[in-house]
Each structure stands twice: as structure tokens, then as C-alpha cells.
């Protein structure tokens, strides 16, 4: 069925569907989804449970097929059995046996060594058979959930087999992170991807963007007039973005040691938070309008010179410690980590966004493993009031306002305000005004992957990273990686269970990090 006419835009001339008005759940086009790397950890822990939950809620397309594609040889039934176990173990709700059986019936498996052209022929044949069965060509969604080194090969093989486009059906590809390991590899991968797919077919996942609280950063900024007037260099002293974990690397030594904290969290998740925090209001929430504004922010972060890397970055590894009384080993003693590893488990950066709104406001980013607490938050520190009319003796006095956007685990927003301490004297101390998601919304948030898979099937790209966005991210990160490779600044250390190395305190001085 593959056609020579390269289009992924079937029949756009029909008017809007009048029946969708007012519906909470928008239609998703009939789709065959192919997961490359279906036997991998991500598929087991996240993708399959997300698909089950979409099925449970009636949110999958009315015609839906799932094809697992991986190198391993197994039958459809063996694949279904494994997927059933994964869903049962990892779903956020107890599976309904009838819905689960219905979903399993739609699952198929094709053994695909990723560079084996013949295997793609078999895959194409199965997709066509499923079209025949449905009596219509179904949209194709290829989900690349393999190790990143296979992304290019899979894209090229899909093209070779003519599976990358279809005359009568949308064809989309979802690419998991990391999209490249540095600027050069990201560009190379992008070159391959864009030689196979049009950008509107490509959905680069950063699952952080699927989190309700991350999306709420935009709602918070652009749905509340009171914050916008102060959201600039005139009123904001500095911003701290923290993504701290209290656990170590677990069994991920192989991946983590080749990645490190900078690639693992800063290049994608934390820069996403930075862009959402700094972007100008888009004229609409159209995917490209939003992403245009995000790219402008990334472009305004000037890549660091080697001297700036030395001055504005800290990298460190955790050493053995006893957090909460439990003895844990240091990073170099973790199983699978080379003795001479220079991989950072902690990094702190000072970034500047050079534009009219943010010039002069430092943005401090820190992330690490085995820190004292697990938390992800954005702290916006406002400047002090220009004149203090109140005596500060006998109290902590007037403190600048601090706005916290907590992403996890206690999703919410808190704002510190100065308030009078009860009594005959005019003494001031900060109090907190808090909004907690759990106390104001009755609905349970869907898992990020549920939202993102559905969006990708609908072709809604707002929550996915565009090609120029990912290149702009790497343009910020790449000079840091290169300087670190040269050994500057030297890697520091911190005891497991502490909030980070002393060098990070020097980076932020004379300010202080918020306590973890």
C-alpha cells in the first residue's frame, strides 16, 4: 500500500466536525502504533500501562492496533503474556479484565533487528493486513523507545521500506529522549530524521512536558494578571530551578555513566522549565506559536566560553554517606561504574537570558542524585522593597517575596508575604500563602505518557520538542560538556544525603540556595 506520493495530509478539505464541540475527550484517529524497543524497560513500566489506562477510559482510537517490535524472537501470544504482566504490575489502576483482554487482542509482535531491511518488510505487511482488517488505512505511529543509537537506523529503514509516508493516512514518529548526546550527534540525528520525515510528523518526547504541574507554569503565568507586571528584571532578583533526587543511580550505571546529570536532566527537563518560565506570552496556544517563544528564550542564552564554564558551572560526584542513618556507597563504588569515572551526579549552573525582559537576572539550575530530599521546584526570588518603613529589631524583618512553583512531589504554588506579627509593635515576618493541587482539584492527574501518547496520535505537537528547540538546547549544553572534558572545572564531591558540594554555594554566593 505505500505510495510514491509523499503526503501525510489526507483529505483536509472537509469542514470541522460539529460533533466534537463541548466534548472533554477529543476524537483520536484510528491508529496502528508500533513500539520499537517493545521489550525494553520504558515500554514495560510506562508505555503499556499508559495505553491500558487510555483504553480503560475509552480514550484510545475506535480502531487501534499495537505492534511490538524488538530484536527478540517471540510469538504474539508470548508478547501478550509479557505485556499483560507489565500492565498488571505498573498500571495506576487495577485493570478491568475485559478491557485488558480486549487490548491484548489488538497486540501483535514482529521481531525486528533494527538494521534488517527484511524485517521492516514483514512489519509493513502486518500494518497493511491490519488496514485490510479495518477496511481503511489506519494512521501509523512509530514510537522509538530503543537505545538512542538505533534511532537513525530505524528511521532510515522505515524510509527504505516505504513506511515513512502514506497517501491516505497520517504517519507520525515519536522519538524518546535523549535526542543526541551532544550538539554534533543531535545535528546528525536531526539530519537523518529530516531526510525521512517532515517536521510535522516528528514528536520528540520530553515527558516532563506531559506533567500537569509543568503545564501549569504556563497557566500560572498567562492566566493571572497579577504576576505579569513583576515578571521581569525590574522586580525579580534571581531564579532557582531545582531537580533533586534522594536516590542513587540504582541499576542504571551503564546508561548513567555515559550520560551524567547535565545530559540526563538539564539539557531537556530543566531547560524546558526555564523556557516556560521565561518565554513571552504566545499569541495563541498553537503548537508552533508556543514553541517559537520557547526557542527565542533558548537563543537568548549565550553559550558559555571555557572561562565562563569554569566560573558558572559546578560538577560533582556523591561519595559514601549515611542519609537517614543508612549507609550508602559513593558513586565510584556503585556496581558498574568505572573506578576512574568523571561523570557528574550533581551539577549546578548559572545561566543568563540575554533579552529585554531578563537581562541581568541570574538563573541558577541545580540537579543531583543522593541529595537530602527529592524535590523539583522553581523558586522566583523577588527584589526587596525599595524603602523599609518598619523596624526589624525583634523579628526577622521584611523579607523579599519568594514565589515557589512546586512541580513534585507536593504540587502547588506558594508565595511568601510579609505580615505583621500580632502585638503592640509593628514587627514583620514572612508568612506563606499556599495553593496545593490536591486540595483544589478533585480529578486525578493522568500519567504524563497518557497525555503525550494521545496528543501524538492526534498530531497535537505543543508538548513536544521541535527540531530547532532541541538544537538550541544542545547549543547551550555543548560548550559545558567540551570544557568539562578538558577537566575544567575539576569534579567536586559531596557526601550522599547532603544538599550538594560547597562549590555550589560559592557559585550562588552572595545569595543562598533554598534549603532542600
Amino acid at each position, binding site marked *: 500500500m505505500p505510495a510514491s506520493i509523499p503526503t501525510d495530509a489526507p*483529505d483536509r478539505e472537509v469542514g470541522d466536525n460539529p460533533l466534537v464541540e463541548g466534548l472533554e475527550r477529543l476524537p483520536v484517529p484510528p491508529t496502528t502504533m508500533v513500539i520499537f524497543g517493545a521489550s525494553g524497560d520504558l515500554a514495560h513500566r510506562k508505555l503499556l500501562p499508559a495505553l491500558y489506562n487510555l483504553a480503560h477510559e475509552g480514550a484510545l482510537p475506535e480502531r487501534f492496533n499495537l505492534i511490538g517490535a524488538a530484536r527478540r524472537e517471540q510469538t504474539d501470544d508470548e508478547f501478550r503474556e509479557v505485556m499483560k504482566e507489565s500492565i498488571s504490575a505498573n498500571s495506576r489502576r487495577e485493570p478491568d479484565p475485559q478491557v485488558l483482554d480486549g487490548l491484548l487482542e489488538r497486540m501483535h509482535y514482529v521481531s525486528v533487528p533494527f538494521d534488517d531491511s527484511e524485517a521492516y518488510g514483514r512489519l509493513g505487511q502486518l500494518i497493511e493486513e491490519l488496514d485490510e482488517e479495518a477496511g481503511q488505512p489506519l494512521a501509523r505511529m512509530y514510537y522509538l523507545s530503543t537505545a538512542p543509537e538505533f534511532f537513525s537506523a530505524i528511521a532510515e529503514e522505515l524510509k527504505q521500506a516505504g513506511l515513512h509516508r502514506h497517501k491516505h493516512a497520517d504517519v507520525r514518529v515519536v522519538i524518546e529522549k535523549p535526542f543526541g548526546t551532544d550538539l554534533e550527534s543531535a545535528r546528525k540525528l536531526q539530519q537523518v530524521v529530516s531526510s525521512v520525515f517532515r517536521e510535522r510528523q516528528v514528536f520528540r518526547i520530553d515527558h516532563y512536558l506531559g506533567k500537569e504541574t509543568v503545564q501549569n507554569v504556563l497557566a500560572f503565568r498567562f492566566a493571572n494578571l497579577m504576576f505579569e507586571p513583576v515578571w521581569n528584571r525590574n522586580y525579580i532578583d534571581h531564579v532557582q530551578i531545582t531537580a533533586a533526587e534522594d536516590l542513587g543511580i540504582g541499576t542504571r550505571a551503564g546508561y548513567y555513566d555515559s550520560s551524567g546529570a547535565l545530559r540526563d536532566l538539564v539539557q531537556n527537563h530543566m531547560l524546558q522549565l526555564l523556557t516556560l518560565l521565561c518565554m513571552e506570552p504566545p499569541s495563541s496556544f498553537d503548537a508552533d506559536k508556543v514553541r517559537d517563544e520557547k526557542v527565542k528564550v533558548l537563543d537568548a542564552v549565550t553559550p558559555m566560553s571555557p572561562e565562563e564554564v569554569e566560573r558558572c558551572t559546578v560538577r560533582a560526584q556523591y561519595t559514601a554517606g549515611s542519609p537517614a542513618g543508612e549507609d550508602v556507597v559513593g558513586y565510584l563504588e556503585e556496581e558498574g561504574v568505572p573506578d576512574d569515572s568523571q561523570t557528574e551526579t550533581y551539577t549546578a549552573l548559572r545561566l543568563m537570558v540575554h533579552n529585554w525582559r531578563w537581562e541581568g537576572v541570574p538563573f541558577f539550575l541545580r540537579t543531583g542524585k543522593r541529595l537530602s530530599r527529592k524535590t523539583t521546584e522553581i523558586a522566583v526570588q523577588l527584589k526587596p522593597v525599595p524603602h523599609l518603613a518598619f523596624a526589624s529589631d525583634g523579628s526577622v524583618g521584611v523579607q523579599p517575596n519568594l514565589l515557589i512553583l512546586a512541580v513534585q512531589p507536593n*504540587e502547588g504554588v506558594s508565595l511568601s508575604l510579609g505580615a505583621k506579627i500580632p502585638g503592640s509593635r509593628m514587627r514583620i515576618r514572612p508568612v506563606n500563602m499556599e495553593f496545593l493541587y490536591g486540595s*483544589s482539584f478533585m480529578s486525578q492527574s493522568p500519567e504524563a505518557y497518557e497525555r503525550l501518547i494521545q496528543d501524538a496520535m492526534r498530531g497535537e505537537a505543543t508538548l513536544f520538542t521541535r527540531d530547532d528547540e532541541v538544537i538550541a538546547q544542545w547549543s547551550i549544553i555543548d560548550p559545558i560538556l567540551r570544557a568539562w572534558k578538558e577537566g575544567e572545572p575539576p569534579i567536586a564531591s559531596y557526601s550522599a544525603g547532603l544538599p550538594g558540594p560547597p562549590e555550589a554555594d560559592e557559585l550562588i554566593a552572595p545569595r543562598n540556595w533554598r534549603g532542600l
Partner: protein
Amino acid sequence: MSQEVWRERDTTPSKVEAALRHLLIERYHDEDAFVPARVLNLVVVADAEFRGEVENRLERVGRYHPSRLVLCSVEPGHKTIDAWCSVSAEQAEGPFSLGRETVELKLGDRHLKALDTIVDPLLVPDLATLVWAPHGHAEAVDALRRLMQVVLVDSQDEQELPAALARSGELLETAYVVDLAWLRSTPWRERVAAAFDPPPQRRELAEIAGVTVRHRADSAAAAVLYCGWLCSRLGWRPGSLSDGGSSRRTGHARARRGEVTLRLDEVEQPGAPGLAGVTIETASGWSFSLDRGPGGLKSIRRARDGSEQVWTVLGASRGEAGILGEGVRQALLRDPTYKPALAAARAMVA
């Protein structure tokens, strides 16, 4: 879940309000992590003799529990206002315990005309107020109009369908109406919208010549609203439905290209009330059906040449137990399609 309680017979709204405030302060003192839920007020007016049944239904709404529940149980001839209130807390996700407040008032029918003056001090200011009167008590609902932003009704509960729909229309003039009968049709509306969403199928919308809605005997309201929705969304002008027998209503709607036959059939349906199936046919012989089945909705698409395709649209049934919770959740959303669907439905049963 922990709970603190206050009760008094022959009391006044201001005493109840003071007691509630006191309970909240005590709770704050006892528990640093206490955070009262602040989503919406729910005022329920119910017959005292069925109070337990209402409480059971409210317990099943799970996480869609309102922040403050004011349950007015009405006992004919009761002279005083007796009150019981509690502040309970349950461990929520994260390190805080989520508080919920319940006020139960036992009062007589003589109190209903001015029920707003009794309930007003007991509501959390600035939160949306939802009113639900499952046993009628129209007088009480009318008294609460100035306080409520949303009213929960179930058109299915009324004896007379035209009267039920007329009442919803009247309530819509002052509040947003969440109609459980309408919500029972939601999955069917979603699925039909999805079935006609691919462009080739979307073209068929203009060709529809017949709609059959199968429903449980007690769920004619959901079926008529469903047809009203199709009429209003597709620009059809509905005519009156006539009874073609005790278990069938038939009628026509005027579409741009001709008449559309509407048929509402009562069917046996064990389990949850609501719709049992829908069939949509075009003049050229194409048809699409949805019917309840295991693990989702059984879907049949019949082509002009008579060939058939059958598959299941996956989805777990929420069941009737979940409908009230869904109603509470919908109180904070706005569906612009209910009002025109209701207007079309009223035209059909006029």
C-alpha cells in the same frame, strides 16, 4: 480518617457557622498538616426518610467529594432546625491531610421557602455552590437560586419527561445545569463524534437519514437528549415524537437535504440505566451502530454493499455508581452543547 463533631438541637445558622469555624480552628491546632479542601460547596435537599440512601450515594463519589457538604434533610412537620457538623481529614497524596466539612441540618417543610437564609452562612465564600435535590423539593431549589451557580438534576427521575426537560430549561435561566441523564449519554456522544471524525466519514454527516436510539425503559430522557444533541449539532429542526406503542417513540427532524427519521426504542438492559445502543444510517445505505458489550462498545459498520465490520471500542463502564461523582466533577466545567440539545429535546417531546 479522623473526625471532630458538634451537634445541637433547635439551633440557628449562626450557631452552626460558629461551631464549624471552631472545629476548623481546633483541627488546625491539632494537626499542622491539615488543609481544608476548597473545591466547591454542595447543598443537598433530601427527604429525611431517604437520608441514608443519599449519604450512601455521596460516599461513593470518592475523590469527587465536595469540600463542604450541607445536607438538608426534610421531615414534614418538623419545627426546629437541628444540626450536626463535622470536620474530617484523610491522608491525601503528599504530606498533608485533606479536610472535608459536613453540615447536616434536620428541618421541616416550613423552612424550605427561605432555605437560602439558613444555608447562606454555612457556605464557604467564593467557592462555587452546587445544589442537588434528588427528591424534588422544587421550592427549596428555587429558594437557593441566589446562592447557587450550578444545579444537579436527573431528568430521568421525573415522572413526566416534558416536565423534567422544562424544569431544566427553567433552571438554566439562573444557573448552570448538570443533568445526570445527559452525562449518561456522554460516552455515546464521544464515540459517535469519533466515528464521524475521519474526513471520509465526516462527509456522511450530511447524508444521515435515520437515527435509532435504544435505551432502558427508565432512560428516555437520556435518549431524547441524545437525539436533541444530534439535532442541535447538525442543524436539524426537530419535530414532535409520537408514541408508536408503549416501547417506541418515533418522529422526524428536518435536515438541509431531507428528513431524518428518529426512533427511540425501549430495550431490556440489565445493570446501569442509560443508553443501550445507537444506530445511524445514511440515505445511501451506509450505517454505523454502537451497542454495549463486554470490555467496551460493540461497533458495527455496514457499507452500502452490505458488507459489515465489527469491532469493540475499548472502555470500562463507569456504571451508575460513578455517575454522581461525574456530576459533581462536571459542576466545575462548562458544556456549551447541553442547552441547545435540551431545547431540541423539548421540541421533540412538546
